[in-house]
């Protein structure tokens, strides 16, 4: 996706943001290609469909992984190290349970952050377009790939809504 082909408009109010999105939709841009960039979460507006990432399920998987690792760490290693206990039990479930719990939570936490980094995506190679005006409160709406035929018409429509960036 190269941004040379893209077209973006800077809107200063949520209303004009909606107009811009609708304009792009009516021009035939598929919803998944529309990008909305803002400096705050616009929770009450559903401009674009974001793909569902099953983050809670992945976090739960991370918890299971971490818990297993914890339990194996505590029980297997204790069994294999030649620790003299004089008849006392080597692997105690209550205490190994605590280690299991802690590492399970750690697994869930780390998995959540890794999933976030990958799914957001952060640290991505793709150079997403950006305008510093966004941090002053404007919302940037646009798409990365515009069919050439519609380009000029769209520029006209979007100019009416806000500043256009190409």
């Amino acid at each position, binding site marked *: 996706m190269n941004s040379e082909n893209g077209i973006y408009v800077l809107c200063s109010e949520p209303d004009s943001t909606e107009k811009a999105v609708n304009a792009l939709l009516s021009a035939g841009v598929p919803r998944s290609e529309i990008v909305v*960039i803002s400096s*705050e979460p616009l929770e009450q507006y559903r401009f674009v469909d974001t793909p569902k990432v099953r983050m809670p399920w992945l976090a739960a998987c991370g918890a299971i992984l971490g818990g297993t690792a914890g339990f194996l760490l505590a029980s297997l290693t204790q069994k294999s190290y030649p620790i003299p206990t004089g008849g006392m039990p080597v692997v105690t479930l209550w205490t190994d349970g605590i280690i299991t719990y802690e590492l399970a*939570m750690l697994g869930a936490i780390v998995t959540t952050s890794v999933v976030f980094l990958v799914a957001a995506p952060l640290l991505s190679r793709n150079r997403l377009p950006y305008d510093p005006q966004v941090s002053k409160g404007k919302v940037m709406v646009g798409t990365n790939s515009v069919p050439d035929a519609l380009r000029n018409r769209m520029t006209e429509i979007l100019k009416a809504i806000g500043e256009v960036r190409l």
Partner: protein
Amino acid sequence: MVKTADEVQRDLLRPVVETPRRAVSAMVGLALVVLAGFSAWMYQVYTGIGVAGIDRPVFWGFYITNFVFWIGISHAGTLISAILRLSNATWRRPITRCAEVITVFALLIGAMFPLIHLGRPWLAFWLAPYPNQRGLWPNYRSPLVWDFFAINTYLIGSLIFLLLPTIPDFALLRDNLSGWRRKFYAVLCLGWRGTQRQWRQLESAMHIMAILIIPVAVSVHTIVSWDFAMTPVPMWHSTIFAPYFVVGAIFSGIAALIIAMVFLRSSLHLEEYLNPRCFDNLGKLLLVMSLLWFYFLFAERLTTWYGNTRSEVAVLWLTMRGPYRDLFWVMVGCNFVFPFPLLAIKKLRTITGTFLASVTVVIGMWIERYLIIVPSLSRKFLPYAWGTYRPTWVEITITGATFCAMALLYLLFSKVVPVVSIWEVKAGLRVPSSASMDESS
């Protein structure tokens, strides 16, 4: 006075951008005290742990008191951030980051104390399970090893919980600053653009983190309490310790948060953000925790008195009638009697009122940790082995230095990261406390 988003941004960025001379001199002063504490610790490592006041049978003193105290303080962030996020309380927006910062730094400081109190601290790494040729392995039965795992998990969790919502603010800083700072924040924000997808993922991640961090926090202080409860020492061997400590931790954590907010308010001119409504709500929470704490204290002491076991009653009276009674009644006064009117009467629940109550609560909770540890150890089972404890200058210096270290770390943090979460406050402007979205700002 309702502000616009731009004004909010300017106000909250100002502490990062400007550094008045007052702040620098404060940092230097605090750093000097921290240095003094560090030197005292190095002296102790060089000369031997005997320069501290511990003896037989009171083998744990100030250092473990401080350890439990700081881990307790670290529960501030969890309660405020996580629980208030989950319950969608809008007044949390300006204070979540203050609270999360307290958690991280209090954990870091608290986790220093197991190192400081060791007899051979240069071997502390033996607590970590690493493959070695010496037949060393940590003993998973020991609550200290549980501490190792629990505090590490909580530290990593709180760091992530702090840093995740800071990413959009790092992006804001990248856009508004120039020079090397711009590059610094550009790296820190990990390429954040603010697409809708990124916002959704962030909120999803924060939601899950909030759900995860609460049981971790509860488990951390439970495990710290089991450092004591897993021994047969009189008045330690009590099943009430786990919830008692968790409640005490949340209690002292909220108090520390209020104190930090008051200082931030005045020194960084954040009066409109850390407003009286926040303090009012936090004051109510503090009152609830004070009542809960008193309930646990009463329940524990009543059960001990009623049971009339000779060794336990000896410790009970030592604390309530013996040489420790002054400290005991000061503690009850500080934690319950004095804050109660300040927090219960609406007229008195002002910023000053909650601040005074919080200061006494922090002092009282420190004394409470001390009174849990030292009297029980000084009167164990065999009277011939009873003893006393008196702290030395080394322990007092290190204790004082940790308080200054906390303040210093906080000050340094406020210079690097906006201490009030800018995007959350701006989002809050757009969605005021009622759910309707078209009230203009």
